[in-house]
C-alpha cells in the first residue's frame, strides 16, 4: 500500500502497519483506521508517529523545536510509553542523518550527536569515581573519629596517622601521634575509667553521626533514604519518580551515606553507591538534548551508570556490568553493554587515581593468596551454601515483616527516634567485642586474610613450631589461645549481626546490604574453616584426610572458606548468580576459586528459592506496591483478555472520545469527571471503530494552550482529531485540531487472546495500556496496573497492594 499519510518505522515511504507487524512478532489486530481517502501532501507536512514531539503541519526545520512544552512528557508516578519514546528517537536520528548531507555544520552536528553517548559515559565515569573516592576517604576518617583523633593533622585516620612512625610487630596500631579519646581527655589510656570513657565517646559519636544523617535526610531530601536499588529497578522498567535522581538527592545521599556508615550501623555502601551513580547519570543527561528529552534513551544511560556504581564499590568493572544486566536493568540492548563497560572502566580508573586506600587497590578487602583447594572441600563449601540460602530466606522474611510493621503501625511515625534507638543499641553492643567495634569492611578484610608468619592478630595466633617453618609456607598448625578467643568472639559477632541487620536495613538513612551479608557469611565461613583446619590437624590419620592432608602440609585455608561463605550469603539474599561469582573472583584476582564460589552460590540460590521465591529487592518492590512487571516469571494461567479488561460486565461502558463530534466542553467534562490517564478515540459512538488513543496530559495541555493562544476557541468549539474535519456552518466557532497529539497506532488485541500472550506483550514491548477489540469493534482496555493486579490475584496475593498507576 502506498499511503504516504501514516509514517512511522524505519522506511521512508512504505506503510506503517506492515512494519509494526514485523517488530511486534505477535498476532495482533490492526484494523485499518477509517474510510477516509488517502491524503495527498507535500513532503514537509508529514505527521510523524504519534506527533508526540512533532507538529503535524510544520516544516522540517521545526523538527528540533518542541511545538508545545509539556506535550510528550509524563506525570509523576506514571509509566512511560517505551514504544513512543523509541520511535521518537529513531525519527530524530533519521532527521539528523538526512540533514547531515546538506552542510558541514549539519555533518558536524550528526557526528557530535553520535559521540555524545560516549562523552556522556566518560563524564559519568569521572563523576562517579570522584564521588566514590570522596565517600571512601571521608568514611574511613569518620569511622576512626569515634575512637580517637590524630594530633599530626586532624584529617588523618588511624592508619594514615601512624604511617610515618615505627610501630612494633605485635602492636601495629599504637603510635604516639594517634590519641584515643581517653588519652586525650585523661592523659592515659589504661584502666577501667579510660575504658568507660572510650565507650561513652564511641556511643556519643555514633549517635551524633546518625542523628545528623537522619535530620539531613528528613530536612533536605527524603528520597535519599534506603538502599535505592528497588526504586532504581522500577525506574529503569519505565516508571517516573520525579526528584529521585535529582541534585539534592545526590548531595544528601553522598553526605549522609558517609555519616551512616561511620556511625557503626550494620549497613554497607554498595547499594547507595548505585543510587549515587544513577543520580550522576541523570544529572549529566541534562547536558545533552538527545538524552534529556527522551526517557527511553535516558534509561539506557542509567543502566550504564548503575554498572559504574557497582564497579567503584567493588573494584569490579565486569561484575558491575553484569550486575546492571542481571539485577537492575529491564531493557538492556547490546549497545548499552559496551557503553556500560566503558563507564565502569572510567569510574574504576578515576577511583584508582584518587587512591583512597593508599596502595592502589580499589577495595579494602582485596585478596592475594592462591592456595589450592581439594575436591573433598566441596562438602563444607556446599554446607556454607546451604547456610547462606537459609540465612537469606530468614533475613528476607524477617526484614519484610519488620518493614511492613514500620509502614502500617505507629512505629513509622518516629523515624528519627527509631534511627537513634537502633544506633544506640548497635553501638552499645558493638563496642565490647573487638570484631564488631571495627568497621565491617575491615572485619571482612581480616577474615579473608590467610594467616602467615607476618601476621600477629589474635585470629592468627597459632602455635608456631619454628623448626618446621620453610619460608613463607606455613603448615596447618594447632590453634593457640588467641584463636579460641577469636572464635567465640566471632560467634557472638555473628549472632549480633544476623539480628541487628534485620532492623537496620530500610531505616530512614542510606543503607546498603552487601557488606553486612558478606560479613555474616565471612564469619560463618571462617568459623567453619578454622574448625576444618583443626580437625585436619588433630586427626590427619582419618580416611578423609589421609589422602591429601598429611602432617606438615598446608591444606586448609580458612580465608577461602570466609570468601565462599560471603559469596553464599550474598547470593542467598540478593539471588544474584553470574554477577556474584564475577564480582567475587574479580575481588580475589584468581580463577582458582571459581568452582567453590559457583558451588556455594548455586546451592544457596536453590535453597533460598525453595523457601521463598523473591530476592530482597523484589520483595521490597512488592512491599511498596511499585508497578514493576517481573520479567523472569512465567504466567501460566488460562485466563483470556476479556477476563482482565475494563470495563467489566456490570461497569458503565468505556469512556471514549469521538473523532470529530465532541466539543471542547464535552471533552473537559470527561477529563475532569474521570481519572483515566488516556482515552480511546473512535469514529462514532454507534460504530465504535478505533481511530487512536490520546493521553490525558496531552489533552489538558493542548486545550489549555488553545484557549489561551488560539483565536476563536471557546467551549462550543468542535475538537477534530482527523486531518479532514467535517465542514461546519460558517457561524460556528473555529475548529480545534488536535491531530498531532493523537496516537494513531495503539496496540490492540482481541478479547479471546490468552493472557499469557498479553502479559508477554506488556513485558517485551513495555506497554502502558492495550486496547481490546471484538469483531473489529472497540470493547475495552487493559492497563499495566490491571495486568499486575491480575498476576497478584492469580498468585493469591493481595491485588490491592498495587498502589501506583
Amino acid at each position, binding site marked *: 500500500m502506498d499511503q504516504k499519510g501514516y509514517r512511522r518505522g524505519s522506511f521512508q515511504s512504505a506503510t506503517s502497519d506492515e512494519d509494526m507487524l514485523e517488530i511486534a512478532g505477535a498476532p495482533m489486530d490492526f484494523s485499518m483506521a477509517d474510510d477516509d481517502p488517502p491524503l495527498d501532501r507535500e513532503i514537509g507536512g508529514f505527521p510523524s508517529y504519534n506527533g508526540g514531539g512533532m507538529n503535524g503541519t510544520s516544516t522540517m526545520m521545526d523538527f*528540533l523545536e518542541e511545538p508545545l512544552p509539556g506535550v510528550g512528557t509524563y506525570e509523576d508516578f506514571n509509566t512511560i510509553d517505551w514504544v513512543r519514546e523509541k520511535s521518537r528517537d529513531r525519527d530524530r536520528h533519521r532527521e539528523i542523518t538526512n540533514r547531515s548531507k*546538506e*552542510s558541514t*555544520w*549539519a555533518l*558536524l552536528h550528526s557526528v*557530535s550527536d553520535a559521540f*555524545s553517548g560516549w*562523552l*556522556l559515559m*566518560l*563524564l559519568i565515569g569521572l*563523576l562517579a569515581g*570522584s564521588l566514590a573516592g*570522596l565517600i571512601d*576517604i*571521608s568514611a574511613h*576518617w569518620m569511622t576512626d573519629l569515634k575512637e580517637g583523633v590524630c594530633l599530626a*593533622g586532624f*584529617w*588523618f585516620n588511624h592508619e594514615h596517622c601512624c604511617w*610515618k612512625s*615505627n610501630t612494633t*610487630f*605485635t602492636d601495629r596500631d599504637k603510635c604516639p601521634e594517634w590519641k584515643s579519646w581517653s588519652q586525650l581527655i585523661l592523659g592515659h589510656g589504661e584502666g577501667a575509667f579510660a575504658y568507660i570513657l572510650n565507650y561513652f565517646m564511641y556511643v556519643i559519636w555514633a549517635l551524633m553521626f546518625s542523628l*545528623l544523617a537522619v*535530620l539531613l535526610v*528528613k*530536612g*533536605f531530601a*527524603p*528520597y535519599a*533514604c*534506603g538502599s535505592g536499588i528497588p*526504586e532504581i529497578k522500577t525506574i529503569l522498567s519505565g516508571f517516573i*519518580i520525579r*526528584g529521585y535522581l535529582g541534585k539534592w538527592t545526590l*548531595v*544528601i545521599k553522598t*553526605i549522609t551515606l558517609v555519616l551512616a556508615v561511620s556511625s557503626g550501623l550494620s549497613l554497607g555502601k554498595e547499594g547507595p553507591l548505585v543510587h549515587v551513580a544513577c543520580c550522576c547519570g541523570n544529572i*549529566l543527561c541534562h*547536558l545533552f*538534548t538527545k538524552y534529556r528529552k527522551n526517557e527511553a534513551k535516558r534509561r539506557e544511560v542509567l543502566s550504564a551508570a548503575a554498572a559504574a556504581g557497582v564497579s567503584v564499590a567493588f573494584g569490579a568493572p565486569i561484575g558491575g556490568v553484569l550486575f546492571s544486566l542481571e539485577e537492575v536493568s529491564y531493557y538492556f540492548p547490546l549497545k548499552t553493554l559496551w557503553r556500560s563497560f566503558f563507564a565502569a572502566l572510567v569510574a574504576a580508573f578515576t577511583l584508582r587515581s*584518587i*587512591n583512597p586506600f*593508599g*596502595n592502589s587497590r580499589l577495595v579494602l578487602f582485596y585478596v592475594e593468596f592462591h592456595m589450592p583447594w581439594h575436591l573433598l572441600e566441596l562438602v563444607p563449601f556446599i554446607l556454607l551454601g546451604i547456610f547462606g540460602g537459609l540465612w537469606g530466606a530468614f533475613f528476607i522474611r524477617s526484614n519484610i515483616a519488620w*518493614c*511492613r510493621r514500620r509502614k*502500617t503501625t505507629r512505629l*513509622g511515625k518516629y523515624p528519627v527516634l527509631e534511627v537513634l534507638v537502633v544506633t544506640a543499641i548497635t553501638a552499645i553492643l558493638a563496642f565490647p567485642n573487638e570484631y564488631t567495634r571495627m568497621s565491617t569492611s575491615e572485619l571482612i578484610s581480616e577474615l579473608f586474610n590467610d594467616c602467615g*608468619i*607476618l601476621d600477629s592478630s589474635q585470629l592468627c595466633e597459632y602455635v608456631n613450631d619454628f623448626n618446621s617453618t620453610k*619460608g*613463607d609456607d606455613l603448615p596447618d598448625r594447632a590453634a593457640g589461645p588467641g584463636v579460641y578467643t577469636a572464635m567465640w568472639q566471632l560467634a557472638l559477632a555473628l549472632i549480633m549481626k544476623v539480628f541487628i541487620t534485620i532492623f537496620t536495613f530500610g531505616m*530512614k538513612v542510606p543503607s546498603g546490604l552487601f557488606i553486612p551479608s558478606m560479613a555474616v557469611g565471612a564469619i560463618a565461613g571462617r568459623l567453619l574453616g578454622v574448625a576444618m583446619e583443626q580437625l585436619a590437624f588433630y586427626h590427619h590419620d582419618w580416611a578423609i584426610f589421609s589422602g591429601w592432608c598429611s602432617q606438615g602440609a598446608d591444606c586448609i585455608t580458612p580465608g577461602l572458606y570466609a570468601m565462599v561463605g560471603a559469596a553464599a550469603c550474598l547470593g542467598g539474599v540478593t539471588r544474584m548468580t553470574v554477577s556474584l561469582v564475577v564480582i567475587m573472583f574479580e575481588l580475589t584476582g584468581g580463577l582458582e576459586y571459581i568452582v567453590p564460589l559457583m558451588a556455594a552460590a548455586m546451592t544457596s540460590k536453590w535453597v533460598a528459592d525453595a523457601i521463598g521465591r523473591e530476592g530482597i529487592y523484589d520483595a521490597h518492590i512488592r*512491599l*511498596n*506496591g511499585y508497578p514493576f512487571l517481573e520479567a523472569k516469571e512465567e504466567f501460566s494461567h488460562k485466563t483470556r483478555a476479556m477476563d482482565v479488561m475494563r470495563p467489566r460486565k456490570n461497569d458503565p461502558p468505556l469512556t471514549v472520545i469521538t473523532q470529530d463530534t465532541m466539543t471542547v466542553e464535552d471533552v473537559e467534562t470527561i477529563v475532569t469527571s474521570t481519572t483515566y490517564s488516556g482515552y480511546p478515540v473512535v469514529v462514532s459512538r454507534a460504530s465504535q471503530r478505533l481511530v487512536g488513543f490520546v493521553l490525558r496530559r496531552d489533552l489538558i495541555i493542548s486545550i489549555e494552550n488553545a484557549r489561551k493562544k488560539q483565536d476563536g476557541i471557546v467551549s462550543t468549539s468542535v475538537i477534530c482529531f482527523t486531518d479532514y474535519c467535517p465542514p461546519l456552518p460558517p457561524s460556528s466557532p473555529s475548529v480545534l485540531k488536535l491531530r498531532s497529539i493523537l496516537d494513531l497506532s495503539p496496540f490492540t488485541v482481541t478479547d479471546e487472546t490468552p493472557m499469557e500472550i498479553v502479559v508477554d506483550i506488556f513485558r517485551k514491548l513495555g506497554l502502558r495500556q492495550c486496547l481490546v477489540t471484538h469483531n473489529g469493534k472497540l470493547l475495552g482496555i487493559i492497563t499495566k496496573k490491571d495486568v499486575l493486579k491480575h498476576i497478584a490475584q492469580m498468585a493469591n496475593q493481595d491485588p490491592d497492594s498495587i*498502589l501506583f498507576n
Partner: protein
Amino acid sequence: VLFPQAPRMFAQSSRNSVSPVLLLVLLGCVLCPLAQASKSSEDIRCKCICPPYRNISGHIYNKNVSQKDCNCLHVVEPMPVPGNDVEAYCLLCECKYEERSTTTIKVIIIIYLSVVGALLLYMAFLVLVDPLIRKPDPYTQPLHNEEDSEDTRSLATGPTLAGARANTVLERVEGAQQRWKRQVQEQRKTVFDRHKMLS
C-alpha cells in the same frame, strides 16, 4: 554554502556541546592537581615486615626510599643478624612499596566538612531564621509535616505571584526556593507520612 538556519543550528549544537566540554575542563582542573599531587617526601615509604627469627622478635621497618630501592637490604637497618644469616632473614621479610597523597586526603576531608557545615547552617537558617525574616505571612510554611497541602500550596503561590512578575535575581531565587521547599514537602509526605515509598 551556509544555510540561513546554520547559525541557529550551530548555536544550538554548540550550546549542547559547549556545556559538556566546559564541564570536562572544569572536572579536569579539579582532578589533575589531585591526581598528580607532588610526591613530597612524606608521601612514599617502603615498609618491611620481618617475623620473629630464632631469638629475635618481629620488627617493622619504615623508610622512604624509591621503588627500586625497596628491598630488605636497603631498608632493614640496623641488620639484627650477622652477615651469613642476612639472606635467610631477608627471605622471611616482606617489603612493600606504598604511596599516598596527603593533599588529596586533606582537600577531601575539608571539602566534606565544609559541605556538612554549610548544610547544617542552611538547615538552621530555614528552621529558625527564615520564618522570622519573612513577612509574617500565614501562608508560608516552616519545615514541618503538613497534612493539607492543596490549599496551603495554592495560598502560598498567591501572594508571591501577585502583581507584576518581578524578575530581579532575589525574587527569582526566592521563587526557586519556594518551589524547592514545596517539592521537599511533597517528598516528605510521600516517604514519611503516607509511607507510599521507601519503607
